[in-house]
C-alpha cells in the first residue's frame, strides 16, 4: 500500500513531518520541501504550527505562487491545480507556462517528447521567436524579482539577440 503523505499546502509529496504541542494540544503537519522552507519550518523560533494550520484553506494567507507548480497562465488564468482536476489545459499559451512540469507526463503518455510530424506552412521564425521571447521575458522578471542580477543580464542579452535576428529577417 502507498503510504506517501502529501503536503498540506500543495499536493507534492511531503518530506517534512512536524508535530508540535501547543498548550495541551498536539498538532501534526506534513509539508513538502519547498513549502516547509517558505513557511520557515526550518527556523523553529519563527514558526507556529497553529498559524499555519489556520491558514490552510483560506487563500489570502497562503503564500503567493512563485514556484512553477503554482503558476497561473497570464493569457487565460488557468492554474496547475486546474490541470490536476481536469487533465486538460486552458489555452495554447498554457503549454509555455506549465512546460517545465510537463516532460515527465509526456514521456509516459507518448513515444517521445518532441514533435516529428507536420509543420504548418505558416509557422515562421517570427512566431517561434515570439514564444521564446515571452518565455525569456518571464524568466527575466523572475530573476529581477529575486535580485539575481547576473542571470537577469544574461537573459537581457539573449532577448536582444533574438529581437535583432527577427528585425533582420523582416
Amino acid at each position: 500500500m502507498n503510504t506517501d503523505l502529501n503536503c498540506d499546502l500543495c499536493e507534492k509529496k511531503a518530506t517534512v513531518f512536524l508535530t508540535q504541542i501547543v498548550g495541551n494540544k498536539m498538532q501534526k503537519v506534513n509539508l513538502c520541501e519547498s513549502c516547509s522552507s517558505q513557511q520557515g519550518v526550518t527556523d523553529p523560533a519563527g514558526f507556529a504550527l497553529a498559524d499555519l494550520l489556520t491558514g490552510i484553506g483560506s487563500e489570502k494567507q497562503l503564500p503567493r505562487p512563485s514556484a512553477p507548480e503554482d503558476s497561473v497562465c497570464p493569457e487565460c488564468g488557468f492554474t496547475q491545480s486546474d490541470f490536476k482536476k481536469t487533465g486538460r489545459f486552458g489555452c495554447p499559451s498554457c503549454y509555455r507556462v506549465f512546460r517545465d512540469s510537463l516532460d515527465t507526463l509526456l514521456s509516459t503518455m507518448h513515444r517521445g517528447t518532441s514533435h516529428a510530424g507536420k509543420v504548418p506552412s505558416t509557422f515562421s521564425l517570427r512566431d517561434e521567436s515570439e514564444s521564446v521571447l515571452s518565455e525569456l521575458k518571464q524568466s527575466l522578471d523572475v530573476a529581477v524579482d529575486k535580485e539575481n542580477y547576473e542571470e537577469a543580464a544574461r537573459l537581457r542579452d539573449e532577448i536582444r539577440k533574438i529581437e535583432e535576428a527577427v528585425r533582420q529577417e523582416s
Partner: protein
Amino acid sequence: MKFSTLLRKPAEWMEHAGPHGDIVITSRVRFARNVVGFPFPGWAEKSDRSSTLEMIRPVVEGLPEMKDAFSEELSNLNAMRKQVLVERHLISREHAARSTGSAAVMNRRQTLSMMINEEDHLRMQSLQPGLNLKAAYKALDKIDTSLESDLEFAFDRKLGYLTACPTNLGTGMRASVMLHLPALVLSDQIGQVIQAANKIGLAVRGLYGEGTEALANLFQISNQHTLGMAEDALVTRLHKVVEQIIENEKNARLKLMEDKLSMLRDQIGRAYAILRFAHVIPSKEALNLLSMLRLGMDLGFFPYEYRSEIDVLLMEIQPAHLQIAAKSKLDAQERDVLRAEIMRRKLKSLPEPDSVNPGDEDSAPETEDDAQP
C-alpha cells in the same frame, strides 16, 4: 443540405465495401486543431466560444469538399438528431452533449465531418470504407493544409499542434479502423490480439457496449501516441497491424470451418431464425445476431449481395435511427418491437443458410475450397 436529406441517404461506407470489406468496416483519421489567441472550448467563456465558432465555421463551410454540406449549430439540433449523428460516427458523444457555441459540418457523402468547439476548437475527421487509412489521411491532410491559409493553428516546434488534452499533442492525429472479428471472438483469441496491440501502443476497444464487452464483434483499433512519431509513420504502422489482424481473423475463420462446422452452422442458423421471425428484439441481441449473419455471408452461407443490407441494418436498428424512422419518441419496449419488425421486413427475401453450400464459388469469395470438410 437539410437534416432529412442527410438522414435519407446512408453513409457511403455503409453501402460500398472498401478494401478488405469483409473484415474492415471503416478507416478513420481525425485531426485536432486549435486557433491561437483563444482558450480551449472547455475553459472558454461563452463569448470566446462564439468568437472561435464565427471564425472557423465560414472557413470550413467554404472548403470545396464541403459543397452542399450539412452544417448546423448544436443548439439547433434536438437530442434525437444529435444521437443519430453519433450513431453514424459523424460527431462524438462529447460533442453531442454541447450546445451553444458548437457546430457540426459534414459533407453529403458523410466521408468528412468537422466538429467545431468540441474538446478542441476544430476536430476534423475523414472516413473511408474498408481498410483505406492512407486515403483517409491524405484527404484530411489536404484539407488541413488549405485551412492553414485562413486559420492560424496553435503550434509549437517541440510539442507540435497544441491541444486541450496533452494526450493529443504533436500530430493531433488519431487514426482508427473498425474491424469485424467474430471468429477471433468465437475461438477465444481476441484477448491475445488486444494485448499484443496494446503492447505496441495501439488501443483496442469494443465499438458498442461498455468496458470489455464488444457488441456485434465490432472493434476499434487506434494509435495511442500522437507525439514523437510522424503522421505517415503512425498510419503505416496501424495499417500493418490491421493487416496482421485480418490475417489472424481469416485463419480463425478457416479453422472454425474445419474444426467446428456444426457449431458455426448452429450459430448462423439460430441468428437467421431469430432475426427472421422474432417480434421483440433488444438492441444488444440484434447486434450480436447481425454479426453472425455477416459472418455467414463472408463464409458463403448466404448470397453475397445481401452484405450491404446487413451493414445498413447494423446502423438502422440503433435507438435514435429507429425513433427518427418511426417519427416519434419510443420507449425501450416499443423500440424492441419496431426493431424486430424492420428485421423481419428487410431479411424476408434472405434465403435459408442451408440452401446455399458454403464454399460455392459465386457466393463465397473469401472462403477457400479446402475449408470444406
